[in-house]
């Protein structure tokens, strides 16, 4: 027993020295750590994210890898459990020694692993649209943020349907902060929030909520409910003939509710998105063809899966620009303001001050047969809000998430 322990210590010491002295051969793979739920309540959303990552890795490896190095993708399934996100993030950074960590679905999971990543010098890419505001030099965000989604959609909804809005939101940081954004924009536009209801995750019965909405008589509803259980709202509201216009930053392009529910449950839903499967530009068609060839059973290519795919190409662009995998070197490339790739939606660039990504945003609407059509094209929108309130990662690393009611001092 004693001998074995000593031997293993020696072996361990040897391998550490080996790791320290071994030069990086061109053939060494680049390790990408990926944390996506493929089981649990959010598996519906996590599976396309894993598939998007697999597709990008396969394409890049076939084309010769990143600077001649192949990508090794290490995927772990945190099953929607934030404690597991933390455990696996620690494992990937300390044991597997990944070069970059990608993933996380809910804002709760992102905030759970961000402090862990902050103690390392490993870059972290978050690939979801979210409530915005994270000013952190260690994190790159490539999903859409409220100035791209809410600042476009809410004024449109108020102009088209009326100034009174009712909010149903999931009760955690995403829903709470998104509701705060809504309050700010609705006030700017001279409207009123006639009701706000925060719903615990996992709740599936909405009869009372529907009655509350009817009592408040809104012109439209902002639906930022999250998870499979809460999505039951649409079916129950349609059965009760609620039939109000709805707007959302996550429905359709993210949860493909229009494919999962029988029509007309999602009738009159609008959303603003950088990606949805119904985009029919030639680049998008080409991308969809490649995806469906590899994953013929995918119901819908959602924006999360699409972002996950882009994230790996963005990482490739950064590494090749920096000729290094070190976070500090990658950030020098971002600081030039030219960290762009040609994505299926068009060119997208990483903003140096906030490390968030510019997107071409479109407003889509669903009809009673659940067909999706583009109502408005906003063109490319920069993630401008963080810079506007004083976040400048090229000068200072705040490591903090700001909200409309919690601005930098």
């Amino acid at each position, binding site marked *: 027993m004693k001998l074995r322990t000593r031997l293993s210590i020696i072996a361990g010491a040897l391998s550490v020295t080996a790791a320290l002295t071994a030069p990086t051969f061109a053939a060494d793979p680049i390790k990408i750590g990926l944390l996506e739920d*493929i*089981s*649990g*309540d959010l*598996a*519906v959303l996590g*599976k396309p994210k894993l598939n998007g990552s697999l597709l990008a890795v396969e394409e890049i490896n076939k084309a010769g890898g990143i600077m001649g190095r192949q990508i090794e993708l290490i995927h772990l399934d945190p099953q929607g459990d934030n404690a597991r996100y933390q455990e696996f993030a620690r494992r990937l950074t300390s044991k597997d020694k990944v070069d970059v960590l990608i993933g996380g679905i809910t804002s709760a999971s992102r905030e759970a692993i961000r402090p862990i990543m902050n103690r390392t010098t490993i870059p972290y890419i978050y690939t979801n649209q979210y409530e915005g505001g994270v000013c952190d030099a260690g994190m790159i965000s490539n999903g859409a943020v409220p100035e791209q989604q809410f600042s476009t959609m809410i004024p449109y909804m108020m102009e088209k349907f009326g100034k009174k809005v009712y909010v149903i939101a999931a*009760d955690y940081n995403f829903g709470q902060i998104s509701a705060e954004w809504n309050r700010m924009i609705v006030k700017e536009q001279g409207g009123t929030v006639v009701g706000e*209801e*925060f*719903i*615990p995750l*996992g*709740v*599936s*019965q909405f*009869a*009372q*909520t529907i*009655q*509350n909405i*009817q*009592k408040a*008589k809104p012109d439209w509803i902002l639906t930022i409910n999250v998870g*499979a*259980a809460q*999505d*039951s709202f649409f*079916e*129950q509201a*349609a*059965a*009760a*003939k*609620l039939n109000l216009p709805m707007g959302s930053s996550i429905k359709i392009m993210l949860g493909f509710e229009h*494919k*999962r*529910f*029988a*029509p007309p*449950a999602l009738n009159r839903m609008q959303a603003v998105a950088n990606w949805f499967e119904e985009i029919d530009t030639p680049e998008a068609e080409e991308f969809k063809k490649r995806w469906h060839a590899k994953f013929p*059973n995918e*119901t819908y290519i959602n924006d999360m899966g699409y972002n996950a795919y882009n994230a790996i190409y963005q990482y490739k662009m950064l590494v090749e620009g920096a000729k290094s995998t070190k976070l500090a070197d990658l950030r020098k490339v971002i600081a030039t303001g030219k960290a762009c790739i040609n994505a299926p939606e068009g060119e997208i660039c990483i903003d140096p001050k906030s490390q968030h990504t510019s997107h071409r945003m479109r407003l889509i609407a669903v009809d009673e047969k659940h067909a999706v059509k583009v109502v408005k094209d906003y063109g490319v929108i920069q993630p401008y809000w963080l810079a506007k309130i004083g976040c400048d990662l090229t000068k200072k690393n705040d490591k903090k998430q700001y909200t409309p009611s919690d601005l930098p001092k």
Partner: protein
Amino acid sequence: MLYQFADVFAFLILSAAGLAIVFGMMGVINMAHGEFIMCGAYVTVGLVHAGFPLPLAQLCGTLAAGVIGVIVEMAIVRKFYTRPLDSLLATWGLSLVVTQGMLILVGSSVAGIGTPPGSFAVGDYTFSVYRLVLFAGALAALGFVYLIFMRTKFGVHARATMQNAKMARALGVPVGRVYALSFGIGAGLAGLCGALYAPTMTLIPTMGATFIVESFVTVVVGGSNVLLGTAPAGILLAAVRTSLNAWHGQIIGQIGMLIAVILIIRILPEGISGFLTRKQR
């Protein structure tokens, strides 16, 4: 308000009816209860997609859950009657296996079938007729349980077996078959809950989990005599939840209901049925 009450009541009773028999009467802490609900829902939706009319599909969903219940009883649960805590582990394991198995077999989500149309208006409010069907389903489930266990020979055998299995066997009751059938009826009622709620909900392998808290608290508050306790427990909890929901939204409703449960168990450790029986004496 009455409609809201009926809606919450239906949800509590339908999710609890099956468990009332399996846990309340038989004493099996069935952690896989939610998966029987999921089974009923999936069979229903699958058959509707295959072209069956909804009511027939719901009947098949209920029966399928019941048959699987009988099989599960004979294969697994039977070995654990003397070890209630181990039955918790065994059924929990079963639940994990089934959830993950369904995720692998049929994928993370199944297309819904849509609620049968029909709505009615009261003043400014419009309501779905199907929610009243759910309420009727809850009453029917209670009536069915009462009839089976109080008015049939099987019911007498079942109650005798649950009270004293050895004595019942000595008197010629086929104890094994009674256990299997009772468990099957419990599972079938869970399947009925899934079948009835299937058109109104998102179908995912973990959907059973949304029912399980409500079902356990209703049964526990109801107490050991399920035939007496489940209905009043449903009424009481539904009243608490409905009024709090209306007052300040779903969060308060859920918190309030769970606090009410804690208070009730503290004051009436034997549940509502225990309280009622004591009063009768």
